[in-house]
């Protein structure tokens, strides 16, 4: 699978390309020849430097982007946590936002009525749930959003850096929930700069470098090669004045 982005010298050039008047697009591959297969209950960690193509890969898997080459196949319900609380409206209460957010991930009103007590309990926002979301701290928004999207166990779970926010106590709860999903057969794809979290959750690691796969191996051996790469990079940086 691969993803090519087009860049245009100006917005006008983009319009001309769209209208078929000229094609001034310059394209670059954000991701090339990435291929893997995951089984039920497997957890894949995605690591790499900034701009390596991690988010692009997860967006392709989540279906928000379309691959420029290749194809992907997923089985079962998918939940993607690319950014928590993105669709929340600040003037509506937490409870109102839950109902709306639920419909985005395919939960009906009846589902939400059934699940809302459990979601609110997990987010630990019982006292604040009927207040407008604009009065929440960023950590509270994230707690509510995480509790919502993980209210129903998916077959495939995609998480992009979502655990970097929230306090230690909540991060622990999130990891426990993801682990529980995995135990009962959910396939997890997890992208993070926190090697600690990846080590805790994942059995396989994919190391991306400039859009290409540098390693796809068990967690410890992939980490070993990645850490060597980081050390080399640091050495090079130290050598250049």
């Amino acid at each position, binding site marked *: 699978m691969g993803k090519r*982005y087009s860049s245009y010298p100006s917005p006008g050039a983009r319009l001309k390309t769209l209208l078929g008047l000229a094609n001034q697009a310059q394209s670059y591959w954000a991701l090339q020849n990435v291929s893997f297969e995951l089984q039920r209950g497997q957890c894949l960690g995605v690591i790499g430097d900034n701009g390596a193509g991690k988010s692009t890969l997860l967006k392709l898997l989540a279906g928000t982007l379309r691959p420029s080459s290749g194809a992907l196949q997923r089985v079962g319900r998918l939940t993607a946590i690319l950014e928590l609380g993105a669709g929340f409206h600040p003037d509506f209460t937490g409870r109102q936002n839950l109902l709306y957010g639920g419909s*985005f991930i395919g939960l009906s009103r009846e589902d939400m009525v059934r699940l809302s007590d459990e979601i609110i309990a997990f987010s630990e926002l019982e006292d604040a749930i009927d207040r407008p979301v604009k009065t929440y701290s960023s950590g509270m928004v994230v707690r509510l959003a995480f509790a919502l999207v993980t209210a129903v166990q998916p077959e495939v779970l995609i998480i992009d850096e979502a655990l970097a926010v929230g306090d230690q106590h909540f991060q622990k709860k999130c990891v426990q929930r993801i682990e529980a999903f995995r135990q009962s057969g959910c396939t997890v794809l997890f992208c993070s700069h926190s090697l600690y979290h990846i080590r805790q959750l994942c059995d396989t690691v994919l190391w991306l470098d400039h859009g290409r796969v540098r390693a796809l191996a068990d967690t410890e051996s992939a980490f070993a090669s990645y850490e060597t790469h980081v050390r080399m990079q640091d050495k090079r940086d130290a050598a250049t004045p």
Partner: protein
Amino acid sequence: MKEVLQETTLLRRHRGLLWVMVRRELSARYAGSAAGMLWAFAQPLLTVAAYYLVFDVVFAMRMGSNAPTQHVGTYLIVGSLPWLAFCEALSRGASSLVDAGGVLQKNALPPVLFVARSVLASWLVFAPLMLLMTLAYLPIGGGGWAVAAVPVLLLLQGLLVYVLAYVLAILTAALRDTTQVLGFFLSIGIFASPVLFPLSLFPEAWRWVLYANPMTAFVLAYQSVLLQGHWPAAGYWGVMVVWLVVLSWLLNGLLRRSRDELVDWL
């Protein structure tokens, strides 16, 4: 028209979500205000009430001999309510994709939902108002069977606005200046239509220019039904269908060309 049909299938498949989004859009527009959604109906109602008061009650102005009615306010309202509906739905629809950029990049949702949501939310406000206007004009138009044309016109206008708004939303995604240009065209567009002046006042050699405004045929059709009690002439229906076909063809081409990159542009 493969792409346009695919979008229609998507809308049908996600109709439950679309309905939730429309309701939420309407309440979000006026969130925090005391009167809430009532404002959506109050704004256009107050505008047409002002026309009636100023032109028909206070100044009692009269139109020329060839006009479909003698009362200026009565004439203005029939054209301006559909025109207001057109402008509102189009400007909201044109910016709908760019506004939803954050959500679309993080959730695997079809972009068409956001265009349809904006247009439908506006339509749900204006369609009842226009039906109300039809009732109020029954004594003027005579209340004949021509009134049955109004719901058909409302549906056609909604469809036309949806297609045009989608075209503009894709163009806006590619080039943000589109909304500025649209604003300019909407403000001069009212002069290139029979909303303010009857068709008979336009020089005959230049009347064809009015049909470059997609609303001209609609405004003429509403006027003939509500002011004269006539079923709209076949020519008006023809112009509407031509506009709809041309815009759908354009939309189809834009969808095909932008399919893989649209979300990247937002």
